[in-house]
């Protein structure tokens, strides 16, 4: 098997006259925490369903864990938490996990021990023998998470795993994702909470109108830094002099300038130059672009609701 656990080229899906996914081309490496981002209706859930063989693609090709889409053996090493996790609600969490474990071919005391460990990990051990129909949304979500990890998977799809969780629940999910990373498990995370994605993911892909339009690595040193400075007076001479330190100089208000420099090492020299030439410096701040800003930039203003 290659290093890629997900490798798709041009996957396409129509629902009647509607093109839900136009071109899903993705490469996810083993052990990566991969964020899958896009606005509502971008085809994210349909894409995940194609990778899990719940939906049959109309075109393109793909491999999951080195096997063609739909391969049952590959699915033995895959876990899945759907966005709207629903289940047989007359069962208790323990019974539910036992049933799902049997579908993975697990049984006996090994399965029971694994269920106990997972229930403890998601803080559900005490409620494990109550029917899940009485569970809160957060408890259901945690049950679903335990279900997704039953088979100690190599690849886990988490579709909005924290949508029903309070801050402590979210922290729990983040911790579990960290543990999965340590074990070398690949996590395919679909979430609208960009702060969360930024905190947990190694790499993200942006999907727009059913097409992967951009991929980027998070947390890596970038080739440039945007700097914002509040200085006065602002004159043509100052602007001319700043060109020696960087590019993309723009004035956003009466005393605020923005520019792009190569690295943080440029900043002390820039500050020294400003002071030495007698410019009043009220602020000089590097700005790292947040994932949310990236999202807006990549998706374009037209994706904003309203």
């Amino acid at each position, binding site marked *: 098997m290659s290093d890629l656990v997900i490798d798709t080229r041009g996957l396409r899906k129509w629902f009647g006259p509607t093109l839900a996914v136009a071109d899903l081309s993705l490469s996810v490496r083993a052990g990566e925490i991969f964020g899958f981002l896009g606005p509502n209706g971008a085809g994210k859930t349909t894409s995940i369903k194609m990778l899990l063989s719940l939906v049959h693609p109309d075109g393109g090709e793909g491999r999951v864990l080195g096997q063609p889409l739909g391969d049952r053996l590959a699915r*033995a090493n895959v876990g899945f938490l759907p966005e709207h*996790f629903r289940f047989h609600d*007359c069962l208790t969490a323990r019974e539910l996990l036992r*049933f*799902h474990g049997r579908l993975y*071919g697990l*049984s006996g005391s090994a399965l029971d021990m694994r269920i106990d460990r997972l229930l403890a990990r998601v803080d559900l051990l005490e409620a494990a023998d109550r029917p899940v129909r009485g569970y809160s949304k957060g408890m259901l979500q945690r049950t679903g998470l335990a279900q997704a990890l039953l088979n100690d998977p190599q690849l886990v799809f988490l579709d909005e795993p924290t949508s029903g969780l309070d801050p402590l629940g979210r922290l729990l999910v983040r911790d579990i994702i960290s543990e999965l990373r340590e074990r070398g498990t690949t996590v395919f995370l679909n979430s609208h909470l960009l702060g969360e994605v930024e905190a947990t993911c190694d790499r993200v892909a942006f999907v727009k109108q059913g097409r992967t339009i951009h991929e980027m690595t998070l947390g890596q040193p970038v080739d440039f830094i945007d700097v914002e400075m509040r200085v006065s007076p602002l004159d043509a001479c100052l602007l001319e002099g700043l060109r020696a330190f960087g590019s993309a100089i723009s004035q956003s208000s009466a005393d605020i300038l923005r520019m792009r420099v190569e690295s943080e090492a440029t900043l002390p020299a820039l500050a020294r130059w400003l002071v030495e030439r007698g410019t009043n410096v009220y602020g000089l701040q590097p700005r790292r672009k947040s994932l949310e800003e990236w999202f807006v930039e990549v998706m374009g203003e037209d994706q904003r609701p309203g």
Partner: protein
Amino acid sequence: MQSILAMAHLTLYESRRRRIVTAAIVCAAAFLAVYAAGLFFVHREQIREGRPFFQQQGTMQVLTIVGLFAANFLSVLFAVLLPVDTLSGEIDSGVIQTVASKPIRRADIVIGKWLGHAVIVMGYVLLLVLGVALTVRLIAGPIALQPIQAIPLMFLEIVLLMTFSIAGGTRLSTVTNGVTALGFYGIAFVGGWIEQIGGFAGSQAAKTVGIVASLISPADSIWRLASYHIQPETLRNFGAALFATSSIPTTLMVWWAAGFTVATLIFAVRSFSARQL
């Protein structure tokens, strides 16, 4: 195989947890209580009036067939309604997504559910038919009619309808599936009566319409065959007008119904396998 058994086990377990089995047993008990009361009073009246033995026997035989007719009708409703949402409901709610994404074939899900439901509906038929047989035995003593002989054919009829209901759930929403499955039985029911009335009236055309309806929906003809087989000769002549044996389905119809059931199950598997979840 483990996944088929897991699905079958879940189906049985769910039926118990959702109190479907309890409701079925309570309804069966209520039906048998009403039936037993009616039987008891009729039998007591006959004894009191000193009716001859053969007349008592004939009345009890007719009432046994009446009991089986009602048991059959209850079983039909149970077989259609029990599995009506087993696939469509899980598809609509999304429950199926975590199940179908496991390393199992879609066929395992359909066959497992079919197996679980078959055990439940056959258990229900058994409960009602044995209940009728026991009630008659306790109240009237031995009679020359064995209700339990109807069981194998009733199993076939009930499993056919249950399979149709499961197959519909692979494509239709729950309510649409319920309406369609009951309509499917309705064709059989009306076709059966047209065939009988045609038989009595001597109309070959009406009989043909009934037979065609039975080929489209063979469930009721299997019940008529079962009802014919358990009746003694005297009752066949006497009770024909009441319980539909003037035109007797052939053994070929049993094979047709069995093949129909298998073909419907194969359709259910293929349809569910091709379904977008």
